[in-house]
């Protein structure tokens, strides 16, 4: 027997709490047919005991549930606390709202998971097969149809329609008609433009066009139309809706789209999908999730937002619904309201999951010049400023044109001076910020606020929330470019090499 043992060998031999089973005992014995060929082995389904099923499902559910909790709860808390501490009002129907928020969380959880299981497989297969099997015009036509389908399926569009019922007929007749009598046509028009934009986007991607001229052309014509609308007293009231529609159209998608994709897959591409059971389950989940989300939206987020929105003005003006109002001196109350809007915008955006994804892309695209943290901070700051300005618009009853025009002209100027990468990231960030949580919350708050202050309509806040991040991201991009250049200059100077 050896006198010395290596401690590692000792540890290995000891094998604290280890058992060994030969894998051979677990693998199946293969059968051969009469001619000696192997019969393909069919694995049997695994049966789990209920305890094992629970252990399997527990992490699956809890991870997805917590994801949504993280994005919804802080916002709801912020709203409730602001109402209780600053406005000194109790939250009405707090149980209904709590139930609603729970429904929003569960609904979003189902929806996201359903999307992943039921919709992603379509996307992957179509994305891979369509360009191979169809000529370019066909691809573009399908892109157009997709754009329309996506908009019809968009839950935030529903929020816009619901908001239309709160508009007073006699004060903004065109707006009322658009949102109530012609709402289907409105959605179709919005959908058509989304589809058109998607076609242009595809072409741009294929031919490597620069984004800048496209921005100049589209923004130029839109600003022109806005100016024209601004001089027509009736059309002025629609401007808010028009600009808000842009913010609403980019979000999650759902059921009619799946049907469309399925038909496309079977008829145009003649492809079939594996795991049909999973896809059916996924689509079922999206439907359940959507129902829950909508119910939760009405009783939870929208209600809370509308509640707070209608109460915030009490901070600086007299409201019949709130005793002892105004609660603060005019200036203090006004500042408090704007700070509230700012905080709401910041909080809602930081929590938006899509922004996180954009941040990662931006970081790798710019080789780390544009940090993910910087982007998230810049976008959130932009949204916060935008919402605060939007609120100020409602308080002082400023015409939207005054805010939109200089904002987008500034954006055009900054675009001109920025590099292509930053331009892409900046203009995309405007679309990312308005997700399924921000839109209903901000819309409801704006409308509640508008009703309380007797503004004609509560639209326009979202459009301000879209332009804010474009400006801040472009500015941050220019700043980091400038810094990087300065640093490079400093390095060359310090190393004694003349700068060429």
């Amino acid at each position, binding site marked *: 027997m050896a006198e010395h043992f290596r401690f590692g060998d000792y540890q290995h031999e000891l094998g*604290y709490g280890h058992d060994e089973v030969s894998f051979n005992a677990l693998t199946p014995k293969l059968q051969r047919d009469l001619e000696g060929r192997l019969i393909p082995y069919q694995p049997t389904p695994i049966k789990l005991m209920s305890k094992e099923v629970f252990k399997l*499902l527990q992490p699956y559910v809890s991870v997805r549930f917590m994801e949504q909790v993280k994005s919804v709860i802080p916002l709801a808390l912020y709203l409730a606390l602001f109402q209780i501490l600053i406005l000194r009002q109790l939250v009405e129907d707090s149980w209904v709202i709590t139930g609603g928020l729970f429904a929003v969380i569960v609904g979003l959880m189902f929806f996201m998971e359903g999307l992943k299981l039921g919709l992603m497989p379509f996307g992957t297969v179509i994305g891979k097969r369509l360009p191979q099997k169809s000529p370019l015009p066909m691809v573009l036509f399908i892109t157009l149809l997709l754009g329309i389908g996506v908009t019809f399926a968009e839950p935030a569009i529903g929020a816009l329609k619901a908001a239309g019922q709160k508009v007073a007929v006699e004060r903004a007749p065109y707006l009322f008609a658009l949102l109530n009598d012609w709402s289907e046509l409105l959605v179709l028009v919005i959908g058509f433009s989304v589809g058109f934009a998607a076609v242009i986007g595809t072409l741009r991607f294929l031919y490597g066009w620069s984004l800048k001229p496209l921005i100049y052309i589209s923004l130029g014509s839109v600003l022109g139309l806005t100016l024209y609308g601004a001089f027509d007293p009736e059309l002025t009231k629609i401007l808010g809706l028009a600009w808000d529609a842009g913010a609403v159209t980019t979000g999650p998608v759902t059921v009619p789209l799946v049907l469309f994709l399925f038909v496309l897959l079977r008829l145009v591409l003649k492809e079939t999908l594996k795991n049909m059971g999973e896809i059916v389950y996924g689509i079922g989940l999206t439907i359940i999730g959507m129902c829950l989300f909508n119910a939760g939206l009405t009783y939870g987020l929208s209600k809370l937002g509308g509640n707070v929105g209608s109460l915030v003005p009490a901070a600086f003006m007299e409201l019949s619904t709130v005793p002892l109002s105004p609660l603060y001196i005019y200036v203090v109350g006004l500042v408090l309201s704007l700070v509230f809007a700012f905080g709401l915008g910041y909080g809602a955006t930081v929590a938006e999951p899509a922004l996180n994804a954009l941040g990662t892309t931006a970081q790798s695209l710019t080789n780390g010049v544009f940090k993910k943290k910087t982007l998230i901070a810049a976008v959130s700051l932009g949204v916060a400023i935008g919402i605060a300005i939007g609120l100020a618009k409602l308080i002082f009853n400023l015409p939207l044109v005054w805010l939109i025009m200089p904002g987008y002209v500034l954006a055009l100027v900054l675009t001109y001076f920025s590099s292509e990468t930053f331009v892409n990231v900046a203009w995309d960030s405007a679309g990312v910020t308005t997700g399924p949580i921000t839109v209903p919350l901000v819309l409801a708050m704006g409308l509640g606020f508008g009703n309380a202050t007797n503004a004609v309509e509560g639209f326009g806040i979202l459009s301000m929330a879209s332009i804010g991040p474009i400006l801040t991201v472009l500015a941050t991009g220019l700043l980091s470019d400038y810094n990087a250049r300065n640093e490079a200059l400093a390095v060359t100077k310090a190393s004694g090499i003349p700068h060429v």
Partner: protein
Amino acid sequence: MSETITYLTDVAMITCVVQSGDADDIVKAAREAGATAALVYHGRGTGIRERLGLLGIAIDAEKDIVTVLVSSDQREIVADRIFHAGHFDTPARGFLCITPLEKAATYIPQSVKDRLTKKE
């Protein structure tokens, strides 16, 4: 520049397959057990997921694969830590295997080399 290559012997490789997103926990556990470095890459798994039927949706088909190089003395304790940190004792959470490697080579800092030669 020296021409000789210093090979490391007594190396083992631990390969773990976990559900996508769990890799960071594994790497952390391995590092706390003394592993120096880890490599993470992505893949797609099949097998158990299909055999579970509808329950299979609870398992992410996307996998993270973590490989950790350890010394043969370390491998038991690192594998142990990974097994528990990754909850490999629950269904479908992960899998690990240990492979002995013949030898490995990389840059070894001069100070470490000096220390090793002094010992002999």
